[in-house]
């Protein structure tokens, strides 16, 4: 079945530097991906999404890249700030028409002041 996973469980980045969080998926039929940010004690917060008809999408300080050939997506955060410290999840919508999100285990991003 489909799965979504992350390459690294933790990532430390100097404040002001850029960070890249990676995610792999296994189902080539997957066509909609979302990045969520989860701070301690809070629910996941929507950051940005991308559909399979795109390979790049930009938001405020964030960019998501989708490489369908190798089934990989990444989240780039520019000029990281202390408030970016959180766990980041990539998630995919069930490609078979259901509405459920399948999440990876997450990457904990720590911003070093």
């Amino acid at each position: 079945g489909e799965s979504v996973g992350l390459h690294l469980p933790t990532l430390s980045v100097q404040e002001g530097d850029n960070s890249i969080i990676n995610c792999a998926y296994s189902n080539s039929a997957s066509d909609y991906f979302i990045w969520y940010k989860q701070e301690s004690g809070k629910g996941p917060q929507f950051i940005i999404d991308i559909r399979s008809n795109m390979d790049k999408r930009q938001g405020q300080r964030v960019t998501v890249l989708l490489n369908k050939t190798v089934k990989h997506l990444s989240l780039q955060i520019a000029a990281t700030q202390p408030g970016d410290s959180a766990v980041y999840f990539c998630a995919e919508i069930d490609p078979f028409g259901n509405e459920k999100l399948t999440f990876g285990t997450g990457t904990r991003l720590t911003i070093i002041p």
Partner: protein
Amino acid sequence: GAGVSQTPSNKVTEKGKYVELRCDPISGHTALYWYRQSLGQGPEFLIYFQGTGAADDSGLPNDRFFAVRPEGSVSTLKIQRTERGDSAVYLCASSPGRGGTQYFGPGTRLLVL
């Protein structure tokens, strides 16, 4: 409020007891989802409502778990005969409709002693 709200924020109960967890979705959102998140893991899908009906309940772990949404707005997740393994954060999300972005609430932290 502007976002998804969940009550209670924390619930401690004893093994074998019955609990109810409530979710108030964003006003006007027709789709509502329940997820469960164990420590150090990503959220796992439980059930999805479109309006008043459960469109997909494939994630409910067993028949001790049940959810309702009688008027197409507020939803209640019900757990009978709680077990220690039910301890987790129960997250609710809502979206404007099929295929829409899912916005999460803060979760209810359930601890079964």
